[in-house]
Every structure is written in C-alpha cells, then in structure tokens.
C-alpha cells in the first residue's frame, strides 16, 4: 500500500472519538473509571464539545455520551433523583465501555512499539514451474459481475471523499441551550420545567431527549448557583420553578472550570 493510501484511510480517524476524549479527561485527573469520576469530568467534556468542532459523522456519538454524563452529573447533584431502567442502563453501559476502551488504549502503545521491530519473515514467493491451468468454470460472462461486486464493496467514503473544505461541521452548543433556558426563566417569574425545557430543532424523539436532559442540567445548575428554586411535590410530577434573584447570569460552562 502506498503512503497516500495509508494517509487517506487514517485521516478519517484522526479526530479523537467520544470515548477517547472522555478517557483522557478521567486519566488526566488520575481517577478510576466510575460514576463519581465521570460526574466530575462532565463539565470538561461538555466544554470540549463546545470548543472543538466535532465532525458531522461523530456528532451522534458525542451527544450520546454527553447525555449520559449529564444524567450522571444530575444524579450526583440530586441524590434522590429516580432514574428510569433505560437511564440506569446507559450509565452502567458508559462505565464499562470506558473500562473496555481503557484496557485497549493501554495495550495499543505496546503493540506500536513491538510492530515491525524484529519481524518473522515468510520466505520469498517462489513461482517455479508455471503450468497454464485456467478455470473452465470461469467464463467471460462472469467477469463483469466480479468487478461490479468489488466496486460495490468499496466503502462509499473511499469513492467519494468529502473535500476538507466541504465538510459540514455541526456543533452542539450547550451554552445556547442554557442561554435560552435562562431567558425563559427571566420572562416568566414563576413557571414549570416542561414550559421552559428547550425544544430540539430536530423533531426526532432522541434529540429531544438530549435537549430535555440538557435543559434539566441547566436548571440544576441554576439551583446550585442560587438563582432559582425548584420544587417537585411528588415523583414524576411537574417541577415548579421560582426565580430568586432579579439578575440571572447565563451559566457559562467554559468559565466554570478554566
């Protein structure tokens, strides 16, 4: 394989993946992988997403991890928060996915060092005694099919690479969501959570879930900072929100940890 081929294939993977970023944040703080360490790096992770432009094809992966982290953080802020079985499962899943990835990312550098250092060589290919021996079952008419099946197998991205300038970057702006949330709280001195939860611009259920979770985290953040008071009389009932101060500063996640 030529260097260009390698370069082409590798370029697509240069961008760090969601688990890679998360593991780096946990390991930077010399923490073990568990829900406590994940809650403590949530802000860093959200801020990473805000600062770096996540390639379009990876947005879904980053959002899914971010949503789970927010859930973990929310649970750590509200110990009596009841999680649905799916939510509990997504937390557990993120934890052991990260543990799996940690194992692999620890051994990979060892393989890189070992690779090609002292290889075992196979003997050179010997083509002695050529005997003309065609395959009678392989006729002319089958050849186009063979080529077409090969062409069909080539990954689409290899055939039509996105030019770097043409790549559409989509970023998830957590602060935008939080800003809009705050505006609504300002507008209505007293409101309920379902009124202020930000609607997802995409109409699908999955992305609305993420927006609701982000809105919820934003609300918790405001409670923690003493700007609002939230009350939920019964489990799964509507949460009522009360503004405590006249001035509400848009919580800027980047500011909280830098």
């Amino acid at each position, binding site marked *: 394989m030529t260097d260009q081929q*390698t370069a082409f294939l590798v370029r697509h993977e240069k961008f760090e*993946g969601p688990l890679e970023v998360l593991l780096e944040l946990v390991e930077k703080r010399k923490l073990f992988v568990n829900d406590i360490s994940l809650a403590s790096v949530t802000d860093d992770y959200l801020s990473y997403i805000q600062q770096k432009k996540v390639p379009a094809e990876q947005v879904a992966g980053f959002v899914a991890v971010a949503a789970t982290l927010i859930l973990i953080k929310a649970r750590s802020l509200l110990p009596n928060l009841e999680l649905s079985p799916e939510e509990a499962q997504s937390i557990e899943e993120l934890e052991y*996915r990260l543990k799996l990835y940690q*194992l692999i990312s620890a051994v*990979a550098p060892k393989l890189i060092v070992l690779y090609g250092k002292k290889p*075992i060589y*196979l003997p050179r290919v010997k083509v002695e005694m050529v005997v003309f021996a065609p395959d009678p079952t392989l006729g002319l008419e089958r050849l186009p099919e063979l080529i077409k099946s090969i062409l069909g197998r080539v990954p689409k991205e290899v055939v039509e690479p996105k030019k770097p300038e043409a790549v559409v970057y989509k970023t998830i702006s957590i602060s935008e969501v939080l800003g809009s949330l705050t505006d609504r709280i300002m507008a209505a001195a007293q409101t309920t959570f379902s009124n202020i939860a930000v609607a997802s611009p995409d109409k699908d259920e999955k992305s609305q879930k993420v927006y609701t979770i982000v809105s919820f985290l934003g609300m918790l953040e405001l409670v923690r900072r003493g700007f609002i008071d939230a009350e939920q009389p019964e489990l799964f009932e509507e949460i009522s929100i009360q503004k405590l101060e006249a001035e509400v500063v848009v919580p800027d996640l980047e500011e909280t940890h830098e």
Partner: protein
Amino acid sequence: MSDNAKTIEALLYAEAREFSIVELAKLLQISKEAVREALEELKKSLEEHGIVVVEQGEAVSLGSHPSAAKIIESLRKEMLSKELTKAAAETLAVILYHPGISKPEIEFIRGVNASYSIRLLQMRGLIEQKHKEGDARVAVYTATSEALQHFGITSAAELPEFAALSEQLGTLLAHDKKI
C-alpha cells in the same frame, strides 16, 4: 522426528504459505488430532533453530526466527511497513485479544466508526473477515499469521499481557450481552 512431522515440515517449506489444520489432515490422510501432535513435535524440534512455527487460530506456517530480522531486512528491497497508527493499533488490539469480534462490537469498544481502520488492516493483510460460527450473516474479524509475524511472535499467547487482557475483554463483553 515422526514421518508426519517431517512431511508437514517439508510441505510448509516447499509451498511457502500457511496451511489450515484441516487441509494438512486431508493431505496427509490423518486426523486433525494427529496433525496437532505432529505440529507440537515439529515446534519442539525447531526450538533451537532459525526457523519457527507460526500458529494463528487454525492456520500454520513457517517463518524465519526474529533474531535474524535485521540481516534479512538488509537483503530485502521491499520493506515491511513499520508504522501502526493509534487508531489502527487499537482496532488490531481489539481483534488480537478478542478473536472473532464483529464490527459493531469493535465500534462499541472504541466509540468511533471502525470501517476505515478495518479496511486498512485488511489491506495490509493483518486481519481477515470471516463468517461468524452459527450465524453466517454476521462478519467477524480475526488477526492473520502475518500480523503475528510483524510482531515477531509465533502465537497470540505471546502478546503483551495476553491471558489477563483477553479474559477481561471477554468478561466485559459478556456483560454487554446480558443487558
């Protein structure tokens, strides 16, 4: 050395490619068990030699001893590629330590799309696609003997921390299936 071990050695040498245990059993008209015994014998008798037996899964081949790598390399114009990127190394690691893993499982562990890494590793001859036992619709991946050769080892068991790591991966992945 027994006749079987001798014949297998001669065959592997003359054909200069890998053979599966099944293929050897058919050619020699002996049982797979007898092939495995002969291979053990061959491995033992080559212990002090410049030739090694490489076993990966069900495939067997002969290769030069890693200690002679430098001198052989000096004679070869066609260089082995010596670089593994982080992405390729991680994908290869997952496949080496958990043979028969599927693409979704690789992606589950690494958190990113694995198409490019898989294709790259296939093109370099380091991994190959197979059908999952019991479910031919599912494509799974295993490392090739060539991958072991690049690392200068004769079986996957010689990989760093192989036993512990492959067990941990197995446990964590089994957990996934319970959910």
